[in-house]
């Protein structure tokens, strides 16, 4: 079976939560692809993380359709609620927050993904009820 690097990196991230230096070194041994190339690819894509992530990775959309439907207020609320900025992980390693580009949920704006699952038509109240379910 053929190996596709971007899918391999995704698999590593799914399993370990992020792409560690150790994982890159192992991939280098397995595939023979130079470390520099592997690191170059892993850092090019916004969804691949080379830093340890929280249990729940939140990607909240701030592209125009969400923006004109109030995404900025939700982002401000999330930043305050979680005590972290975009790109950071909370101290208890529970949440990582990323402001991201359009996730294609423009028809249900504002929207976000938590570990890849879409949550749409968000309001502050809805955010709270979602958080209550995240153990």
């Amino acid at each position: 079976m053929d190996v596709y690097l971007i899918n391999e990196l995704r698999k590593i991230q799914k399993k370990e939560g992020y792409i560690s230096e150790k994982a890159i070194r192992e991939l280098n041994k397995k595939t023979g692809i130079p470390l520099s190339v592997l690191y170059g690819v892993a850092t090019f894509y916004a969804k691949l993380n080379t830093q340890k992530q929280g249990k729940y990775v939140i990607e909240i959309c701030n592209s125009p359709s969400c923006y004109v439907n109030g995404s900025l207020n939700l982002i401000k609320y999330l930043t305050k609620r979680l005590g972290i900025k975009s790109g950071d992980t909370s101290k208890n390693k529970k949440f990582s927050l990323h402001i991201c580009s359009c996730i294609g949920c423009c028809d249900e704006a504002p929207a976000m993904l938590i570990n890849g699952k879409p949550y749409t038509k968000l309001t502050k109240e809805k955010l709270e009820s979602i958080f209550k379910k995240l153990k």
Partner: protein
Amino acid sequence: MQILKKTNQKAYFIAKGLGAEKILLILKAKGLLGRGGANFPVWQKWQMVLNEPGDEKYIVCNADEGEPGTFKDKFILKNNAELVIEGLLIGAEIIKAKKAFIYLRGEYEYLIPKINKAIKLVKNKTKSKTEIEIIVGQGAYICGEETAIMHSIEGKRGQPTQKPPYPNEKGLFGKPTILNNVGTLAEVPLAIYYKDYNPNLRLHCLSGNVTKPGVYELPLGTKLKDLMKLGQPKNKIKAVYFGCFGGCMRYNPEMKISPEDICGKDCILGACTVIAVDENQSIVDVATNIAKFYEFESCGKCTPCREGTMRILALMENISLGNATRKDLKTLKELAEVIKETSFCGLGQSATNHILTALKYFKKEFEAKCK
């Protein structure tokens, strides 16, 4: 909706029975154009790859739908993925590709089970030997560009390279490759199977300040007011954006949504994406938001786009905060023009369309923010 019709893989068997040349003639006669935004005739793209020498050829389905405000591919994959797979296998059959790819944006990874189910079903029915591989994109707007998507599948950074050669000559792994949008591939079986196939219907993605956003299948050239009637905006609509790259214009109810009518106004229609912006929004703030998008998504390959989008964002933030002068507006326009003229790829070249059109149609809003 035409796009929700089923063909139950009958188009695949018609294609297999008739052979490549006859199928291309049918696609030509039916007037099937690409749905990714460029409106390129499908038969012509396929013919070019068919004409290339060699046995190793590929077909790629572009499901990296990254243009803000666009969600038609998600709609198709959610509701009629079988059609896309059938179209992909018909293309593979025509050029004798042993391998086909679906480059699915990572943001849609929740659709993978649905797509896998459709692949299994369609492959079982058609007995096609073409192997289908799903490559999951990892969040890079640039990978919608035709050379960047190839590099991304090859395991490289998704950056564009010089054209020519075009993918039809040297695409994936240097071999002739068909690259078609999800929407295009879904139309292929419909065009082959249905005698009354209508090539003029387009999936319009309506979002923004409307109460009924969604995918609306309407004929090309539908008036904006008719689309807006379906969207039921609460407040008066001030502007429409054709995605981010397409730029914006003042809402004109009588304006027809067709490439000819919209491109004449400095905008690009692309894939019929319409983001409605109402009078409660500030165009300066929307422009700042879009500037952030481009600054974040610039792939970093060429200087005008990498540095320029960063400068545009800095200028826009200044204007938005009320710290800029009229002179800054002149700089903004000049910089936007330079980026448009000198960027390496089509994405960079359109990264400032939204600024240039906003300055053209909403200049007063910008001036009001300046000292």
